């Protein structure tokens, strides 16, 4: 055995049979660069990851042409981060990037210029809206955008199919070492569920905050040990666009009519029993269903084991009343939800993979009993379109739609039969996001349709004397009112691919001529 003297003055072996080569101690600081160097000195600044400017952070990350950058959409229409970062990247002359944001909204219109100038070459997102969506629908990009569900994005990131080079994550509160959460600060957004997946899997993680807090910032959603740099800016978002005070329940009589009918469907379906779990959309008729379900829950003394998804003040209130035992929150929609998740240990933040990744060891949509979703279009096979409008332009998001539809025991779509002059129920949807095999019931203001794949549900709804019709009949009713729409004229160019949650391509969106 050959021994060498190490930097502590001790003799240690260089190798041993059965173990292999060994490294002798070379000094406390030599191999662990991040720790403080001059112990004992009180005048040195504390170690932190703060970088002066966003530009420096970008440079430090080593971002190059062709790499992939990522963002989350927890700030919704109030987001400043995507535009702020992309402007800096553009100024640095970096090009051909892949932009992977968990979703994009109307406030991201400035990306159009970056695309034109070649800064962005590819986009992965759950949704597109506004000018950016218009331009892409009209053929702005050479490479099709990839639309994926929330669960699908988590799958892609975790399996390495979507490798993120640099994640730029806006965080409402952050300490100097990178513990971050969304529970406090002027830009508080509640759950950081989509950001967490990126923070865990990206090669480099840059946190951008407008609220530096004392160390350690517990409880933390993003762990300091994942974070490379932190940049402090004036504002990461517009609070008014991030979260309203409390989500207002619709007062529209039509939406209330549909919501009440949907609640009756759920009650009669066989899935309404003590301990059931529920997810609803965050607005319109889908959210209003909670109001009517709540009445029934009180009447029959039925409590929900958990509510999932995008969480609003209505869900929080029902939990605080004792009607919903736990809340699993991947996105907090209003300040009530933000308050609750910050204070209450039974209102738990979950990340996008836990939420809906179909390939992990078990995501929570698998445990969901009832989900209430909306639809822009639904066809006679129950396929649902939530992404393209009746004019062929992208203006929606895949979101958790296909994840929850398949995971739930009962998936209920609520939608008016006709919107303006556009029929919702048609022969063939413009774009399939959620396949009809996973959609169980459609509730409209003109009646209910049950997927023939669920004959037992159909029987129960009929026994409850609900107005059930074959979906073809609802389609005919719609057409009678609106007249038959002319088919859309699409071009050949594919502007977006719609990826199903398992990574396969379920549909394409082609260029539409203006």
């Amino acid at each position, binding site marked *: 055995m050959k021994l060498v003297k190490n930097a502590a003055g001790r003799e240690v072996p260089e190798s041993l049979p059965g173990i292999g080569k060994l490294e002798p101690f070379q000094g406390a600081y030599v191999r662990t660069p991040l720790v403080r160097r001059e112990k004992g000195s009180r005048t040195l600044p504390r170690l932190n990851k703060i970088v002066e400017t966003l530009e420096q952070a970008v440079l430090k990350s080593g971002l190059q042409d062709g790499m992939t950058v990522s963002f989350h959409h927890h700030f919704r229409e109030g987001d400043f981060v995507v535009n702020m970062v992309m402007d800096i990247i553009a100024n640095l002359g970096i090009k051909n990037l892949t932009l992977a944001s968990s979703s994009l909204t109307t406030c991201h219109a400035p990306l159009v210029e970056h695309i034109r100038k070649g800064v962005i070459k590819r986009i992965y997102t759950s949704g597109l809206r506004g000018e950016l969506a218009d331009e892409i629908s009209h053929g702005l990009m050479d490479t099709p955008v990839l639309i994926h569900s929330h669960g699908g994005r988590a799958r892609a990131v975790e399996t390495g199919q979507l490798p993120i080079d640099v994640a730029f994550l806006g965080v409402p509160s952050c300490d100097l070492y990178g513990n971050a959460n969304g529970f406090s600060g002027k830009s508080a957004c509640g759950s950081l569920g989509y950001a967490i997946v990126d923070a865990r899997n990206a090669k480099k993680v840059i946190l951008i905050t407008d609220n530096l807090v004392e160390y350690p910032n517990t409880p933390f959603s993003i762990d300091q040990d994942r974070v490379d740099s932190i940049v402090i800016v004036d504002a990461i978002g517009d609070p008014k666009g991030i979260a309203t005070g409390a989500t207002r329940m619709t007062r529209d009589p039509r939406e209330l009519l549909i919501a009440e009918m949907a609640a009756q469907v759920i009650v009669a379906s066989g899935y309404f029993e003590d301990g059931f779990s529920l997810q609803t959309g965050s607005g319109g008729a889908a959210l209003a269903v909670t109001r009517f379900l709540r009445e029934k829950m009180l009447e029959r003394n039925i409590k929900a084991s958990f509510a999932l998804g995008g969480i609003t003040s209505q869900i929080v209130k029902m939990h605080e009343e004792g009607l919903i035992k736990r809340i699993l929150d991947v996105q907090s929609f209003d300040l009530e939800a933000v308050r609750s998740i910050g204070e209450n240990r039974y209102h738990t933040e979950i990340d996008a993979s836990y939420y809906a990744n179909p390939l992990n060891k078990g995501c929570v949509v698998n445990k969901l009993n009832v989900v209430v979703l909306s639809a822009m279009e639904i066809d006679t096979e129950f396929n649902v379109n939530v992404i393209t409008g009746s*004019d062929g332009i992208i203006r929606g998001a895949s979101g958790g739609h296909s994840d929850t539809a398949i995971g739930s025991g009962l998936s209920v779509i609520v939608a008016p039969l006709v919107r*303006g*002059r*556009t029929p919702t129920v048609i022969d063939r949807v413009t774009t399939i996001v959620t396949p009809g095999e996973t959609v169980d019931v459609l509730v409209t203001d003109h009646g209910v349709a049950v997927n023939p794949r669920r004959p037992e549900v159909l029987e129960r709804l009929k026994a409850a004397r609900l107005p059930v019709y074959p979906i073809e009949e609802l389609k005919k009713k719609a057409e009678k*009112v*609106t*007249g038959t729409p*002319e088919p*859309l004229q699409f071009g050949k160019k594919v502007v977006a691919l719609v990826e199903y949650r398992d990574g396969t391509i379920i549909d394409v969106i082609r260029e539409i001529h203006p």
Partner: protein
Amino acid sequence: MRILHTGSAGTLESSDVLITVERNPEKGLVIELESISEARFGNRIREVIFETLKKLQVQDVKVRVQDRSALDCTIRARLTAAIFRAAGIEKYPWEELE
């Protein structure tokens, strides 16, 4: 029927249509359609306007249509009202209208 001056009927509220009718000094029918339903129903809307004008025996007219997703029946109603207003007629020829 002779169009004497400009007449309009309807509103810009959702599901309605604002139709303005005026004489066309150059002969013939001109339809100016502004509609969010253009892609799917543009032709049908023009057809309804054309049929209604024919029924009312109106020629040489400019029709400006600001559509907010109105159904055929609404378009017919608003156009009819606009035409009678533009023609200054208050005694409606109901037999012909049916």
